[in-house]
């Protein structure tokens, strides 16, 4: 994945470039907002790591402009500000993720892998976890290579869970998705769908966190 690193602190940029390169990312570093915008315009990156505190312009403006230019370019925001309002504004303006400095390198890699997986999915239309393979173009799910029949809602729920593998999807998030798909959500609709889904998938593929939500392991 080609990353555009927009960071004005050169020591940090140098360290990040080295660390990200060793993880197999191709990194292009720029230290001003203007350069960032022209790189985004030239479409020579797959995702952007954006520091909000830049010398020449507000990082949030870059975010806004890049969103207007290319709605699908993933942007991971880095910031030394901790303001909750900033965070909300950043996510409102379309940042895909948000990391407050100082951050653990493992956390940064994990978030980038989520973006990469999403991009990869977009390119190959395939998410594969353990024995389960989900094709987002044909809406087909295979277990050990054999296609299984899923209802539309079961498929959408499984896609949600597999796209954010390794993380929890809370009841609220999954129910909100059911709503978004125009479903009349009865109080136990989610449980019913998950239970049906479970019968068709390998044992323990979907983990329940009692009272919290559901998760699919990323490994």
């Amino acid at each position, binding site marked *: 994945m080609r990353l555009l690193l927009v960071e004005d*602190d050169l*020591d*940090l940029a140098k*360290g*990040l470039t*080295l*660390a990200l390169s*060793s993880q197999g990312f191709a990194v292009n570093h720029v230290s001003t907002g203007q350069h960032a915008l022209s790189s985004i315009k030239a479409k020579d990156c797959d995702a952007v790591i954006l520091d909000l505190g830049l010398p020449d312009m507000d990082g949030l403006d870059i975010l806004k402009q890049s969103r207007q230019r290319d709605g699908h370019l993933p942007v991971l925001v880095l910031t*030394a*500000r*901790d303001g*909750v309002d900033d965070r909300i504004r950043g996510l409102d303006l379309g940042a895909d993720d948000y990391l*407050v*400095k*100082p*951050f*653990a*390198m493992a956390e940064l890699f*994990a978030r980038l892998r989520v973006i990469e997986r999403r991009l990869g999915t977009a390119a190959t239309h395939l998410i594969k976890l353990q024995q389960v393979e989900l094709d987002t173009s044909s809406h087909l799910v295979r277990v050990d290579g054999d296609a299984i029949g899923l209802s539309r809602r079961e498929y959408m729920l499984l896609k949600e869970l597999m796209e954010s593998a*390794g*993380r*929890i*999807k*809370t*009841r*609220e998030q999954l129910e909100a998705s059911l709503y978004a798909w125009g479903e009349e959500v009865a109080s136990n609709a989610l449980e019913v769908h998950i239970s049906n889904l479970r019968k068709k998938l390998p044992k323990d593929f979907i983990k329940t*966190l*009692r*009272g*919290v*939500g559901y*998760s699919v392991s990323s490994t």
Partner: protein
Amino acid sequence: MRSLRRYLVTVLIALFTLISFVAALQSYKQSAIRAEALFDQDLQVLASSLSQQYQAGPQQELGLALQVWQQGQLVYRSALAPETSMSETEGFSEHNFGGKRWRVFRQTPTDMLTVIVAQPLKQRQQLADEVITASIYPVVLSLPLQAVLIWLVVSKALSPIKRFSAQLSSKKANDLSPVLLEQVPAELDQMLKTTNQLFARLSDAFDREKRFASDVAHELRTPLSVLQVNLHNAAQQWRQSGISDPEGSMLALQVGVERMSALIEQIMLLNRTNPEHFQARTEPLDLAGLCRQVVADWYPQIEVKQQQIELLGLEHLVLKGDAFALRLLVSNLVGNASKYSAVGGVIQLELLTEANKAVLVVQDNGPGIAPEEYSRVFDRFYRVGGDRHQSGTKGSGLGLAIVRDIVALHQGTISLSQSDFASGLKVTVELPSVRANS
């Protein structure tokens, strides 16, 4: 009301003048009526004495004594007059006779004739009293009216001061906004300006103090990131070049930087949730949903330690609170439970309502805290077992201090006890004002 002094002086003088004038007018009228009556009485007396003299009318009691002497002989006396001369002194004098004290006037116009007229002193005083009373009572009657008017005028004049002090005393401790008053008199205006200037300066100072801690932490964040990134790279290079780390110095460095990062994070949060600074934005929120989000946030770390986590009790618990602060509260409790519990440990959250209170119970099966330390763990920078916590986890010592502040912000209570598991800590947070639950 431009000036308090001018207002009071003008209005009070005008009031006094008006009332005094009315009272004086009234006194004048009343005294005139009395005096008129007096003069009429004189006329009557005169007429009566004349008619008596010529034995033309009936003997009338007028309260006066009359004697007429002619060449030493009493030729006429009225009913009240004695037979002896009432006075031997020419002109005015006072004498006792007939059991009364009299004011006597003797006149001798010719050697032949002496006229003596007497009037009882008591009667004279009575008449004088009537006249004086008539002139005084309007003034006396006007006094309560004056008192009421003075009270009204002074109350009105002082009302801006009353409003000013009411506004000041109704201010909350952390409200440093200026006092706004309309139509302020000149005397109060300066006071108001000075007070507001003081508020503005205080507010600036508070902001600066608040910003300072925040700025310091903020400025430290980028250098810390540089440290973290480069440490990661160095460790990576050591590993690749086959350099072993028998002294654990690289690991110690990494742990140290992580601790410093966590500490800075907590200092900023403590600074933000400090009740003196915090402007809570309370809104109805679902504590259960908030707990689910927090668990989701912590899940990657919890999964790494293969810990079990569950949320029991109510599926929705709506209460009024500050979302940011409450999320931080739950996050610190869940984070502590995960950090201080062993690999494969159990973390349990439970939500219930009790007597109109929302109750959140977070417990784990970690090492727990000795009861004698319960009160101290809420102190800033206090860490159980000092720097040698048996879990090997190095916290900032601020997490529970922040939790305590947030609980206080919401007028709740927090208590620690032995968990229901074989070992571990149970934290019970009670928050008031439950709106509804299902």
